[in-house]
C-alpha cells in the first residue's frame, strides 16, 4: 500500500455486490443514452432517405436561371451537382394526357430517375417515358410519338424508358421527359428551375445568401427543398423539429432517470459508510481526503461501467434497428 487511496479498490473488491450494483446502474444509464442517440441518428438517416426518395436530392432551386447564372453556380466549389429541370405541366402524348418535363442527364439520379432501357434523350427529337406508361400505351423504344402542348405539336422518338414514379403512376398520367435542348426549342411555356445540391458540410443558408448576392438573384426566384434541409438540420423550417423534440424529451427522461439511479446507488453506499468515514477522520483523514476517496470510487466504477454501457447501447441499437426493419 503506497497511498491512502489504495483503500478504494480494496473496498470495492471487499464489497463485490455493492460495486456490481453501482457498475450495473451506471452501465444501464450509459446504454440507454447511447441507444437513444444511435436510434435518433438512424431515424434521421432513414427520414433523409425517405425525403430524397419523395422530393429529390437537391437543396435549392433557382427559377428561370440564365446560362450565365447556371455556369457560375455550377463552377462553385461548394456545389456537388446541379442540373436544369423544366416543367411544362400538362401536355398530350398521342392525344393522351401526360406530364411533360425535361431534366439534365447528370441530375437524373438525384431525382430518382433511372433508365431501365434505351438511352437518355440527348437529341432534340428524343424523349423518354415511364415504364408503366410504355406498356400502357403499347409503345416500344424507337417508336415515334406525337407531343402537343398548347397549339404546337411535334413528333418525337422514344429513346429510353425509366423507372416508374409513384405519384404519376397512381394518377394514371404518364411522365414524359425530353432532352433539355429539345425542350427549350419545343416550347417556352414551361417553367425552368436550376436545381443545386451542395457538398456535405456546407452551410447552405450561407452559401445560398452568397449566391444570391453575387448573382443579384431576388428572393422570390429561389425555392428550397425544405424537407431535406430540415432533416439535415440546415433550415429554420419546422419539419424535422418533431424528431429533435422527441429526442430531447427522451434524452431528458433518460438523463433524469439515470441521474436518480446513479445518485441513489452511490448515495446509499456512501451513507452506509458514514461511520467508516468518521473513523478515517479520527485517524487523521481530512474532509478533502474523504472526498477524494469517494471521487476515486466513482471514477473506478465509471471506468468499468462506461465501456460496458456503450457496447450494450450499440447492441441495443442493432437489435432495435433489426426489429424495426
Amino acid at each position: 500500500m503506497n497511498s491512502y487511496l489504495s483503500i478504494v479498490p480494496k473496498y470495492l473488491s471487499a464489497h463485490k455486490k455493492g460495486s456490481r450494483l453501482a457498475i450495473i446502474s451506471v452501465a444501464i444509464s450509459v446504454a440507454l443514452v447511447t441507444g437513444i442517440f444511435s436510434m435518433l441518428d438512424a431515424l434521421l438517416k432513414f427520414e433523409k432517405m425517405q425525403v430524397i426518395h419523395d422530393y429529390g436530392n437537391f437543396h435549392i432551386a433557382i427559377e428561370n436561371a440564365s446560362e450565365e447564372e447556371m455556369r457560375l453556380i455550377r463552377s462553385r466549389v461548394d456545389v456537388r451537382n446541379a442540373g436544369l429541370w423544366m416543367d411544362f405541366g400538362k401536355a398530350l402524348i398521342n392525344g393522351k394526357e401526360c406530364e411533360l418535363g425535361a431534366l439534365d442527364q447528370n441530375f437524373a439520379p438525384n431525382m430518382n430517375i433511372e433508365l431501365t432501357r434505351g438511352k437518355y434523350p440527348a437529341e432534340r427529337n428524343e424523349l423518354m417515358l415511364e415504364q408503366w406508361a410504355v406498356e400502357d400505351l403499347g409503345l416500344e423504344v424507337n417508336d415515334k410519338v406525337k407531343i402537343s402542348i398548347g397549339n404546337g405539336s411535334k413528333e418525337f422518338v422514344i429513346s429510353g424508358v425509366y423507372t416508374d414514379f409513384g405519384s404519376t403512376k397512381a394518377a394514371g398520367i404518364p411522365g414524359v421527359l425530353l432532352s433539355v435542348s429539345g425542350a427549350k426549342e419545343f416550347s417556352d411555356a414551361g417553367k425552368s428551375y436550376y436545381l443545386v445540391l451542395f457538398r456535405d458540410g456546407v452551410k447552405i443558408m450561407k452559401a445560398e445568401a452568397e449566391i444570391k448576392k453575387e448573382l443579384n438573384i431576388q428572393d422570390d426566384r429561389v425555392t428550397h427543398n425544405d424537407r431535406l434541409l430540415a432533416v439535415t438540420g440546415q433550415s429554420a423550417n419546422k419539419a424535422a423539429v418533431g424528431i429533435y423534440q422527441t429526442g430531447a424529451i427522451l434524452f431528458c427522461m433518460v438523463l433524469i432517470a439515470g441521474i436518480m439511479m446513479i445518485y441513489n446507488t452511490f448515495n446509499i453506499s456512501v451513507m452506509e459508510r458514514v461511520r467508516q468515514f468518521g473513523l478515517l477522520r479520527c485517524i487523521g483523514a481530512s474532509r478533502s481526503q474523504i472526498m477524494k476517496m469517494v471521487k476515486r470510487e466513482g471514477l473506478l466504477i465509471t471506468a468499468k461501467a462506461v465501456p460496458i454501457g456503450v457496447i450494450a447501447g450499440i447492441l441495443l441499437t442493432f437489435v432495435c434497428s433489426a426489429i424495426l426493419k
Partner: protein
Amino acid sequence: MKVLITENLCKTYGAGETKVEALKNASFSVSKGEFVAIVGPSGSGKSTLLNLIGALDTPTAGKVLLDGKDIFTMKEKELSVFRRQNIGFVFQAYNLVPELNVEENIVLPLLLDYRKPEKSYIDELLNVLGLAERRHHLPHQLSGGQQQRAAIARALAARPAIILADEPTGNLDSKNSRDVINLMKMSVEKYKQTLIMITHNENFASFADRVLNVEDGVVTELGGGQR
C-alpha cells in the same frame, strides 16, 4: 514540559430544560511522557473530556493547548493535519478499517499524512505488540485482544505527541485487558509517548502516573497511582 493544558473547559449539551452540563471548568495539565488515567462513573463526562482533548468535538467555552497550540482556533483543514500528526486514538470498539489487513491499518495514518512508512519501525511495533505473524490478517480474522493491539500500533505509528484511549479494555476479558494495559504502558515508556486513558477498572488506573476523577462534569486530581 507540558504537552497538554486545558483551561476552564466547559461543554453544555442542549438548551432550556434539556440542558446538560457535561463538563464544568476543567483545568489541568499533562507533562510529556506521563500516563494519565481518567476514572469516573458512567455519564460523568469522561468521554466528553477526551473528545474535546482530541478535537473530535468543540467546547462551549475554554481552551485546549496541545503541544503549545490552541486547537480550537485552527481551521478545519489545519486541524485534520494537526490531528493526524499529533494525536493517536484507541477506541473501545477497536475501529480498524475492515477492508485492510493489520499492517495496512497500522500504516494508514502515515499514508494520510503523505509520509513514507519506516519499515523497521513498523516491524518493531508489530513485534513489540505480538502481531508479527498476524500482519497480513484482516481484522475480522483476529481476536478482540489482537485487534486492540493493532489499534494501539496504529496510534503509535505516526509517533503522535499524545495518545488518547477511550476504555481500550472495555470489550476485553481480564487476561487480554491486562495484556493490553501492560503493552500500552510499555510502549508509552519505550517510545516516550504521553497517554491519556479512560478506564472503569480501578486496578488499571493504578498503573498510571496520575489519576483524574470526573464526577458530574467536575475534574479532580486523585494523585499518583501506586507506582
